[in-house]
């Protein structure tokens, strides 16, 4: 029971999003980052709890088992977050803070280099259609993220990562291969 209630609480927490919309310009940066930390940890806790039921997969020589475990976890998350939508995690104040963190990496020659690295054998220009709570297509490459840019973004719980699909910054759950949320045109 406790587990069910905590799941509901976590899902509700993740559904808090939109309330921050009108505060976008007034929330201090530190508060926005603390809120991001809370939201992303809530997601990770939900994911870990959902995975607990299935048992976390360890190394195996059977690719079928890897695929099955990933699919099962993704299905549970998708079900638990059935109402998830963009900006559940990257709320407007958080998005604004992220854009200011990305900005120094996007100016002048450095900016050209940043874009070059991100697009170098990453998803093709224009990317591909994707949605919150949808899978990252396996046939698509996972473009690199410049190390210094990565260092300037807030840390993430285990197996969550920042990636780019064309100009868009996505939060990817590497274990479930799901797109958790995204910031459109983050490096445009």
């Amino acid at each position, binding site marked *: 029971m406790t587990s069910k209630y905590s799941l509901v609480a976590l899902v509700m927490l993740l559904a808090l999003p939109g309330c921050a919309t009108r505060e976008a310009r007034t929330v201090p940066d530190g508060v926005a980052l603390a809120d991001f930390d809370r939201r992303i940890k809530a997601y990770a806790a939900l994911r870990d709890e959902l995975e607990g039921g299935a048992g976390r*997969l*360890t*190394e*195996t*020589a*059977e*690719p*079928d088992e*890897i*695929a099955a475990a*990933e699919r099962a976890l993704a299905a549970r998350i998708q079900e638990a977050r059935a109402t998830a939508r963009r900006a559940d995690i990257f709320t407007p104040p958080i998005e604004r803070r992220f854009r200011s963190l990305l900005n120094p990496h996007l100016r002048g020659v450095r900016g050209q*280099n*940043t874009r070059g*690295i991100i697009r*170098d*054998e*990453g998803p093709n220009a224009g990317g591909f259609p994707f949605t919150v709570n949808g899978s990252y297509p*396996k*046939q698509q*490459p*996972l*473009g*690199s*993220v*410049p*190390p*210094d840019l*990565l*260092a300037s973004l807030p*840390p993430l719980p285990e*197996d969550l*990562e920042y990636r780019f699909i064309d100009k868009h910054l996505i939060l990817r759950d*590497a*274990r479930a*291969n799901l797109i958790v949320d995204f910031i459109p045109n983050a490096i445009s």
Partner: protein
Amino acid sequence: MRCLPLRRLHAPLAVLVAVAALGSCAGRVDPIEVATVPAPEVTLPMRPGSARFAVLGDTGTGGSAQYRVAARLAAAHSRFPFEFVLLVGDNLYGSERPRDYETKFAVPYKPLLDAGVKFYASLGNHDDTNQILYKPFNMDGKRFYTFRPRANLRFFALDSNYMSPEQLEWLEKGLSGSTSDWKIAFFHHPLYSGGRHGSDIRLRQTLEPLFVKHAVDVVFCGHEHYYERIAPQKGIYYFTTGGAAKLRQGDIDRSADFHVAGFDDGYHFMLVEIDRDELHFQVISDEGRTVDAGMIRRRATPAAAS
């Protein structure tokens, strides 16, 4: 059509049948008579007790070139029995269904796997991160890891797609705590490259100071679909070896000041032998021709690659 149960077949026959069968299963591989691929001439010193391994890059196409290189490598193993293979990323191109692990890895390298050769993989930009769970890649469920096959030899496998502060902290700790004579790093994106992707300057700015500070000796990378040997940079030797299944002919910019040797006319693999303070390397094409070879002496004495 149902694919054949490959694991139950005798190794060379299995590969032959598998390749033929894959023509139907995967729809793009031509049969190759693996058993007839002659072993290339191997000129490494082959000293008793030396550490021996191979390096492959950008392997996972499941195409005929991958199978051809794999067959030549297996033939080379009969003359130069290496213990393990480093994979420098792009282990599975395109789809990553369970059967892709077979057609793009387990089948082409079956003779080596059956012979007990271990593969140690690193992730490329075409690799799903859950490859870390695939036991035959020996990644210990981690994106970056280290292993020490001999007391004098330590490897660091890095995820150059995602060089997070956490990974850098781990690397610094691992390098500073290593007492091995040889420290060798391998990962996907080259820090120095005369190819179409070019040098990854931002990655270089991040990694090179650590490599220099903690005396990394050699770095193996892929991503560029050819072979390139770089002039020692701050005492470190860099090799790009990304042509084990894909090839970009004529892609090397030989005018780059760091360029020493290269091969972009065919597919290739690398053989490496380490004996005390010497690292010997030999690069062999899919046709069995040696396209580069030399020796590196560990930094204690002045470095020299011939």
